[in-house]
């Protein structure tokens, strides 16, 4: 950035600081959450420490781990779908509808295809992604052409999706009936995804899909021109437009990508578990994805941990219920954790920003004091601006173009 050792050194210190802040935020969040949860439980007459012990014991057992991993796969995919939108300030609340519509059509296509076996899998996956992309694309199109808020349109599309499935998931339309369950035709055994056998149960092979999706997300958004454009639209539309980015096209593209990812959310259940889409197909994972994306800070690895944490809480929540605790306490914990994380990150970000400003300011003041004394010192006049943006309070120009000193996505 600069050859002058005087300006170089503080910058390096800020970098170390950044690392520290990166750890401070989640640590603060978890500690806060822990304290609040303990308080809530104590106030309602439940022993929090015994509960944490039960959760810790039970959640780390081998069969619990398999269960948790399997449960986390759709959560992760859902979080990635939401995060794609988040990165450009699009709030796709419609992942829930997108994945259900996608899973329904994918299951129907898979069930009615005539050629046998493994060959159907790519068709099922592609159908799911395409349907999810179309369903989200509607909202993207409406936003780009008519300025309709994606928050409104996606949540309405959730309802429309529910009605569409309700209509088609009917004996004689695209489904058949077994007792009280109406479902698409069962996929044959050969069309199911592989599983990884362990001593404690089977891990869904669709974990591979989640890993590939996570890698693709990381690479596409963090390492490509497209990802840069997408993020820059999220940072400032006018700046992106000035940089030659078509904002409308980016809106549609981001929604389509988010929807395609959402289409995969139902696949672990469909291809590794149920083999059919029926009126017992799990719902609500799209909303879970929003919380997990927030918790994981839109970071590919962060979201993986968040998804595992969510699954851990659900697994151990069932056990808590068994031990006489209220099952609702898990929902309370999830809420508290998300709030703590959001608040802690914001606090740490502001604190880091102020600290950074103070340091740069102090350093400039020191230099201003030093310059007149050392006449002819090799400090060019245009040097100071290189470090001043932080001091002027423009957080965007701080470091490496990151708006957030704790943003883990920016190296």
């Amino acid at each position, binding site marked *: 950035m600069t050859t002058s050792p005087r300006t170089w050194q503080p910058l390096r210190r800020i970098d170390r600081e950044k690392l520290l802040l990166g750890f401070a935020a989640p640590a603060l969040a978890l500690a806060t959450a822990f304290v609040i949860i303990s308080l809530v439980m104590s106030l309602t007459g439940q022993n929090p420490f015994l509960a944490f012990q039960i959760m810790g014991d039970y959640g780390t057992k081998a069969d619990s781990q398999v*269960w948790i991993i399997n449960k986390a796969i759709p959560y992760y995919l859902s979080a990635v779908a939401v995060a794609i939108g988040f990165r450009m300030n699009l709030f796709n609340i419609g992942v829930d509808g997108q994945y259900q519509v996608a899973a329904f059509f994918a299951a129907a296509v898979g069930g009615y295809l005539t050629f046998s076996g493994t060959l159907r899998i790519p068709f099922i996956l592609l159908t799911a992604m395409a349907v999810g992309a179309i369903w989200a694309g509607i909202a993207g199109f409406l936003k780009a052409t008519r300025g309709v808020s994606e928050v409104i349109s996606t949540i309405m599309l959730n309802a429309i999706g529910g009605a569409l499935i309700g209509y088609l998931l009917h004996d004689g339309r695209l489904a058949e009936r077994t007792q009280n369950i109406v479902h698409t035709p069962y996929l044959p055994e050969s069309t199911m995804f592989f599983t990884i056998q362990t001593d404690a149960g089977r891990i869904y092979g669709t*974990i591979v899909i989640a890993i590939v999706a*996570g890698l693709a997300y990381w690479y596409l958004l963090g390492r490509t021109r497209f990802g840069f454009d997408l993020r820059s639209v999220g940072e400032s539309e006018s700046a992106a437009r000035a940089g030659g980015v078509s904002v409308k096209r980016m809106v549609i593209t981001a929604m389509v990508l988010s929807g395609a990812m959402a289409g995969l959310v139902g696949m672990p259940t469909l291809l590794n578990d149920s083999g059919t889409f029926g009126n017992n197909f799990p719902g609500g994972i799209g909303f879970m994805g929003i919380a997990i994306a927030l918790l994981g800070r839109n970071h590919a690895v962060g979201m993986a941990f968040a998804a595992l944490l969510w699954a851990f809480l659900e697994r151990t929540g069932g056990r808590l219920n068994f031990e006489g605790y209220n099952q609702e306490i898990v929902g309370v914990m999830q809420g508290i954790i998300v709030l703590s994380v959001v608040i802690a990150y914001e606090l740490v970000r502001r604190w880091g920003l102020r600290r950074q400003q103070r340091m740069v300011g102090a350093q400039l003041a020191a230099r201003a004091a030093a310059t007149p004394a050392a006449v002819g010192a090799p400090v060019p006049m245009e040097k100071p601006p290189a470090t001043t943006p932080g001091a002027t309070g423009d957080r965007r120009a701080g470091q490496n173009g990151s708006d957030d000193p704790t943003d883990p996505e920016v190296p």
Partner: protein
Amino acid sequence: MAVTAALALTASACGESSTETADGESPGVGIAFDVGGRDDQSFNEAAARGADQAEEELGVSANFQTARNDETDADREQRLTELAQEGYNPVIGVGFLYGNAIARVAEQFPDTTFGVVDAVAEGDNVYSMVFAEHEASYLAGVAAALKTETGKVGFIGGVNIPLIQKFQAGFEQGVNDTDPDVVVDVQYLYADDDRGFTDVAKAKEQADGMLGRDIDVIYSAAGLAGNGSIEEVAGVEGAWAIGVDSDQYLQDGLAEYKDSILTSAVKGVNVAVFDLIQSVHDGEPLNGVGEYTLADEGVWLATSGGFIDDIMDEIDTAREGIVSGEIVVNDTP
């Protein structure tokens, strides 16, 4: 990334399972409820009453577990597995969503007896309890048609699924057979979402809309959510609510509104659950499919409150017609 995390997790506690199979005395009966929980005053409550009766008469205690909304089969399997591993016997899943999970878990615990309400599950150690809801609903329809003064009655279903359509079909047929001029307004709270059984506010809203359209008898088949409809109906003079699954006139949680509860289409889940617990207690566990119909008093129309005493002749005629096979009640609308 995820793999590393997964492997790290798996490596840390290999081979250790979360629960060891309990030995010795069974701690009693394990009951896993559908959404809404034991105090839904309706469906789950009926199952709980069966267990309460077993506790009183047989000294068998019960452990109640409840489902959350939006569960998967994995969640349900976990709940059932834990009950079975802790030694509970029988283990009963209340609600059709438990069908798959019961079949899978029953296979792993051949020495435990399993029961499932509203579904038929495979397995030699599984007792499936199914009910003729449409027959009781038919009688509710007869009562509604005779009691309405506006000529309009309403049906509120929780979720538009075959199970709830049975209630609708029976009710509509009962109304039409009694008085073809009476119009039945059918509404479902959700097309495809189990919140339909817990969303009290939405049922209240729906009932409010119906009352505004001059409908004066509302039959709700929506589990816990139906309480909202009953509450709303109770606020209107001259309007009647018809309860479901439990005799809702007798429910403590609904005592405030009981003077508006005309009758209830009762589903004898308590009878079925008690049957099963008793059979296990006696060492001769039931298995296969248990059908509970109007003929064998597995379902019935409640008379608590005495509001339908004046029309009992018509209702008895209809009951006899169904029992004798003269009236065939459709189970799909």
